């Protein structure tokens, strides 16, 4: 075991650092999805042109075909340089794209992957429904097959970036009368197709980022099915497991910076002399350090065995809850200034309110604990 990087990897890190230093946009990324769209697209385009998009994606689809360790180095340096969040490109880069790489046909990959990397196509996710949250297998949105088309009716909710997206990774029921995990399909839905209505939803942080999506006889080609008709559950799960890969490292670096900032604030304002505050800050610092160790372990596991171990669910749960503990420390240090928050502010209070999503979205903390208990520890199923 060792925590050092090879000379080639060190050199790669230097390249990342140098480029980021001179290219990070001076302006701040706008908070709301529609205002941020141009910013997000331009930044993604710039990343692509400089060779920083899709570092470990296949070369034939616009990626660079480099190692997962290099991807991790890039993400570490990206966060360290406080580069802007990739925003609207998030779903395409972190969910849709990786799912296509594993499950899609050559034609689908050749069409979509370069567009995602270049920031030309914005993707959104269409998994959750009003009646299918944690119980994702309760999906009721229907796809009726008519000739070489699928006719879609139903609705999705909590769809981030839906009102600015070009495509959606949509999971729907394509087999009439099917139950639970069976009869679902993962399809690419054109968000500009007739019959789609998007109703943006404002979050309690004031931000407008996610939306409700309604489908009224929306027609998409049958060719847009990815991974085979009726195979949607397996395809969707491959996305979720990818999500449990390298992504944590950027969060780790960001959390580490946040904790250092909080320690600096507590020192500057004399709050560090409060033993309870000092104790909790020390704890956060130790925990953030452990996230890096866990992520490195997970990446080493992928390098050694080709796939992440079940402990990825642990990193996910721990990172989400740690992020909330950091945010809560932030507002604790703030005192009554907390009350001055207004919609549109982009500060610690905003992060705190937005941060509730960390233990809800993409599998709640409770579902994560079920997964750890059942798949990792082998405890009997609850449901």
């Amino acid at each position, binding site marked *: 075991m*060792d*925590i050092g990087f090879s000379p080639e990897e060190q050199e790669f890190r230097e390249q990342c650092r140098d480029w980021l230093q001179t290219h990070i946009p001076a302006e701040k990324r706008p908070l709301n999805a529609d205002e941020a769209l141009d910013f997000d697209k331009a930044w993604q385009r710039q990343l692509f042109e400089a060779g920083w998009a899709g570092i470990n994606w296949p070369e034939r689809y616009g990626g660079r075909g480099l190692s997962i360790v290099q991807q991790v180095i890039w993400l570490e340096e990206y966060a360290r340089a406080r580069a802007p969040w990739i925003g609207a490109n998030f779903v395409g880069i972190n969910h849709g794209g990786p799912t296509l790489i594993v499950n899609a046909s050559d034609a689908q990959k050749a069409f979509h992957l370069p567009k995602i990397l270049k920031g030309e196509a914005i993707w959104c996710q269409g998994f959750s429904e009003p009646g299918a949250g944690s119980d994702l297998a309760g999906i009721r949105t229907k796809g009726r097959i008519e000739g070489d088309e699928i006719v879609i009716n139903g609705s999705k909710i909590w769809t981030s970036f839906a009102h600015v997206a070009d495509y959606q990774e949509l999971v729907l029921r394509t087999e009439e009368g099917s139950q639970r995990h069976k009869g679902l399909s993962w399809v690419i839905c054109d968000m500009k197709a007739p019959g789609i209505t998007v109703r943006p939803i404002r979050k309690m942080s004031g931000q407008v980022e996610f939306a409700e999506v309604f489908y009224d006889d929306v027609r998409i080609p049958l060719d847009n099915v990815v991974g085979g008709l009726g195979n949607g559950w397996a395809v969707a799960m491959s996305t979720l497991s990818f999500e449990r890969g390298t992504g944590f490292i950027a969060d780790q670096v960001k959390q580490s910076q946040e904790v250092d900032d909080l320690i600096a604030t507590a020192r500057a304002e004399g709050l*560090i002399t409060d033993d309870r505050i*000092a104790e909790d800050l020390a704890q956060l610092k130790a925990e953030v350090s452990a996230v890096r160790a866990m992520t490195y372990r997970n990446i080493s596991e992928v*390098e050694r065995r080709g796939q992440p171990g079940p402990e990825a669910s642990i990193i996910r*749960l721990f990172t989400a809850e740690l992020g909330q503990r950091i945010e809560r420390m932030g507002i604790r240090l703030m005192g009554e200034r907390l009350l001055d928050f207004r919609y549109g502010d982009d500060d610690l209070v905003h992060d705190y309110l937005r941060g509730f999503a960390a233990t809800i979205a993409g599998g709640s903390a409770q579902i994560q*604990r*079920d997964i750890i*208990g059942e798949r990792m520890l082998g405890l009997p199923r*609850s449901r």
Partner: protein
Amino acid sequence: MDLTPNDEQEALRTATVDWLADNMPLDQARTRPASIWQGMEDMGWFGLTTGAMGLDHATEALLFAELGRFLAPVSAISTAVAARWSDTEGKVALALGERILDSGDTETALGLFDGKAGLVSYQAAAAEPSLDLSTAQTILDAAPEPALLGESEAALHFRLLTAAYAVGCAEAAGAMATEYAKMREQFGKPIGSFQAIKHMCADMAVRSQVCRSQLYYAACALDGEDPDVDFHIGAAKRLADQAALENGRANIQIHGGIGMTDEALAHLPLKRAHLLQFVAPTATAELL
């Protein structure tokens, strides 16, 4: 960068676990034969990082976590550190202020004194039981004067191995609780099928994973002379101490009434966790 054990390390770990399972089962933790020490010495655990064997701290931490899982004698820690950083031979007990832990069969102990590792000599006396039923102690009239070891790494090494013990202790409690939750039935089902219990088991697994990962990183930081090695070992000890204590308590809760008894084993990791809290603890200021 690689934070997973390689094949050689896995083989050493397997050999360690096999020996411990045969010779040091938890149900004999309070009545171990005197010959156990010779057996441990024969396994080479006290000299892993000495010049003769020349293994790294990462390998050593991996194996000491297994020792910790079986609640092995805590003097394995002090003996290994003494073997690495002094000329002392044979068993070295663990000094904790005026207390000498695992004090039998030797008159030398090693501990931390104002953050520095040092050796003390003491008069052999009848050892008395401690809260941790697998550890006997001798209480001296006054804290002995130490002969400090020259190398500052000795204190880091000492804390690292204690952290490894605590990681093993946390995992022992977690594993015990999870096994019990699979077996014990109420309302016609294993209690582990209920989310209230399952989520406690999951949290124990999270705590174990967190501290084991930080332990690996810390051990590598010591091997690689990382500038932040003090922080990483300090963080590993703190996280492992918390995991051992919290998992120890949760284990008893999951066992219910039987967990309250002297006869069941659930109280053993908790009591060991309490002991380890006092050995090379990490102060808040060391992490800030």
